[in-house]
């Protein structure tokens, strides 16, 4: 299936929804794990207690891609995650994450052709306020006919 066909069929359509109860203990654990020391992230009694901005990186949907998304072949790899905080996440609420395919694009590099799929989860609080946007990026690397190990990807840049 061509990229344009994938885009028209799958982009911007919700394919997953999941609830995430937010506990103060989990917020503190996360803050400490990332080395945060500010009391408004580590002390639940602090009047401005909230989750660190990257807290929603721990939220995962039930699916990475839409159920009927075609198998594209090649070698799938995790290509990273980006969190865009929108509003404070408070303890004791249940957040709802809805996922859609946000972007599909292709590129070429020294390791060959690659297709990138960006699944975006929008996380909202009970008042329906958008608190976080989480982009999970997957790359599917086309396996060349004669794989040359000496030309493997370097990690940065094409």
């Amino acid at each position: 299936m061509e990229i344009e066909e994938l885009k028209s069929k799958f982009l911007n359509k919700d394919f997953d929804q999941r609830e995430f109860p937010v506990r103060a203990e989990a917020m503190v654990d996360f803050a400490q794990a990332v080395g945060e020391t500010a009391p408004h992230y580590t002390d639940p009694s602090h009047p401005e207690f909230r989750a660190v901005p990257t807290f929603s990186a721990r939220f995962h949907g039930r699916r990475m891609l839409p159920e009927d998304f075609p198998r594209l072949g090649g070698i799938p790899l995790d290509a990273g995650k980006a969190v865009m905080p929108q509003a404070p996440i408070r303890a004791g609420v249940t957040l709802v994450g809805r996922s859609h395919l946000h972007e599909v694009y292709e590129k070429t590099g020294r390791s060959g052709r690659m297709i990138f799929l960006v699944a975006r989860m929008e996380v909202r609080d009970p008042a329906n306020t958008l608190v976080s946007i989480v982009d999970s990026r997957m790359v599917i690397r086309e396996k060349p006919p004669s794989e040359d190990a000496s030309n493997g990807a370097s990690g940065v840049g094409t």
Partner: protein
Amino acid sequence: MGAHRPSGASARVNLDLHSHSIKSDDGRAQVDNYCLWIRKRELPIDGFVLTEHRQFDFESDYSALAREHGLTILKASEVETEYGHVLVFGVTPALVAEFNFADIRLPLAKVVEASERHGAVAVPCHPGRPRVGMCAHIGERGVPAGVRIIETFNGGSRGSEDADAQAMAARLGYLGIGGSDAHIVSHIGRCATRFARDVRSEGELAEALRAGEFEAVSWKSKS
């Protein structure tokens, strides 16, 4: 466009002609951090060109940043063709309307022809790189028409990739430019292009490239 070096600056100007910011999907560098790094490390370049992948960034205005740091910051594009990746200098809205910059299967002939018609200059980059460099495709597809300049120093080249590019340039009579291909801050300025006269805008850059008054330079071994 942003060019804010003091007037009377040296007539010989070093510009890193190949770099990427966070506007590129694989870029990890913020433009202000490139500026800080160049000044902090006293790199011998007078500015750089942001060649974002498969797009032209009409949105960003780096003129204040250029003024603050006394650097030239220009914008260009890196597109993808059947001969590999190609830098396009002097991009205009009219040129962007000529072909889909996001298409990874652009015909090089079309990119070269449309660029020339709109006053821009197309330069195949990292020609020695496997799969995405011109050297890998000449055997099968022949020597492409219209190419006059290639990138002979690329900061991301490995092994003999730059030497292969330089050998091809010598064999086919191409001029050479240099660029770091930086995606992270510490890679800016590894290679550059030295111009005989000042270059302060995208239009002047395309003009200087057409005039052939430049040479590729590299500081890779010193970094």
